[in-house]
């Protein structure tokens, strides 16, 4: 294959890269997870009304609570204790309704480089139509999907606005391709998407090393949340 054709193929495949890169592993560990009261409440993002609540106060609280507090606490393993801190004590549920579907996502926060980062992970989606109220399972593992994390830096503008600057998949892929950034990843040859497979520790080191570089963030696709209540 000529180098000219190869260059065209590489350029074409880059068009398929998602702007927002996803990660197999989480960024946040139980010992570094932060509680962030400023994010709770009702927010508007374009047409979406988004609610962010601590897990403990969300409609999923019972579901989470019974996983740990339903057990005799003395019987909790060390891992269970860590999980209960991360997923119950220091987690938030982000939910919104769009076209009769309610979406639930889990959000954890971590301070790195004196900035606050969010780790966002999909939990569930449900039909809100009362005649057909059931969970939508089309993205379950049995259908050939696995869930992944996205990461965003949070920029607070007073108490009524938050900007979420997501990591830029195109920039990271470009830097990996040029050998300027070393982070463990896999490329899906069929879709062109990059999946970061670095461990949680590696991810934290990556943010500590490159997090101050604004090119790391996809500013064009930043999400702006404006407080409603």
């Amino acid at each position, binding site marked *: 294959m000529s180098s000219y054709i190869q260059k065209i193929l590489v350029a074409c*495949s880059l068009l398929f890269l998602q702007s927002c890169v996803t990660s197999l592993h989480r960024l946040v560990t139980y010992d570094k997870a932060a509680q962030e009261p400023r994010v709770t409440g009702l927010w508007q993002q374009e047409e979406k009304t988004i609610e962010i609540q601590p897990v403990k106060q969300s409609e999923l609280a019972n579901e989470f609570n019974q996983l740990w507090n339903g057990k005799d606490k003395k019987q909790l393993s060390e891992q269970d204790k860590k999980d209960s801190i991360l*997923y119950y004590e220091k987690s938030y549920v982000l939910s919104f309704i769009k076209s009769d579907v309610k979406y639930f996502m889990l959000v954890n926060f971590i301070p790195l480089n004196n900035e606050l980062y969010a780790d966002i992970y*999909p939990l569930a*989606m449900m039909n809100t139509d009362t005649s057909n109220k059931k969970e*939508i399972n089309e993205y379950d593992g049995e259908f*050939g999907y696995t869930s*992944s994390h996205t990461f965003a830096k949070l920029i607070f503008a007073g108490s009524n606005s938050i900007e979420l600057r997501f990591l830029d998949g195109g920039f990271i892929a470009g830097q990996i391709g040029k050998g300027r950034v070393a982070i463990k990843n*896999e490329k*899906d040859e069929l879709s062109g998407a990059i999946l970061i497979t670095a461990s949680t520790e590696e991810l934290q080191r990556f943010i500590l090393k490159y997090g101050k570089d604004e090119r790391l963030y996809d500013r064009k696709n930043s999400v702006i949340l404006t407080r409603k209540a």
Partner: protein
Amino acid sequence: MKKISAAVAIIVLLSLLSGCLFPSLHPIFTDKDLVFNKTLLGNWIDPKTNDRVLFENVSPKDLEELTPVFKKQADKIYMLTNKDARGNIKSRYYGFLVKLGNKYYLDYYPAETEKKKNYDEFFTQHFVKMHLFYNIQFTGNGSFELKQFDKGFLEELIKNKQIRIKHEIMDDGTYFITASTEELQQYILKYSDVPKAYEEDTITYSKIN
């Protein structure tokens, strides 16, 4: 909320992969391994569940989701539509018929449906598409059988250090297979005749039309 309960539990386990499925990030084929068998085109039914699957030639519109490298293989790609007994579309996949050694395999890769396109894009971009693969045997009487590789068998091999295959270990100890196509093919060729390498249940499809 019963299912959400399950989802939350799964989050804690950090694994949305079904226990026995063997999904892989990478395909089991390169372009030279792809074959096309016209016999597969048409409607098929699983008499046990009444689930149906339609095999069609892939359309130019469906190819838009794939990178240019794979678009060149359009004449060897099937579009599979799975429907339940009532005819509702459950899922769609790109289907790749692969010949490795003297056996045939089907590599399933998720495709969009009209319904999925309406879901919130921010939410759905958190789901990574994986390859599911099956051994396929044409039984000669208007039927074919699918046998899925068993994830538990592979995990035991990895745990017992009987195999070296690229993977990630998730927080709950489960394995996420990131092996290259070459590694996957080596695995398949080595274990294709080992009954325990497959799940016990075989899916049989009979031709409708």
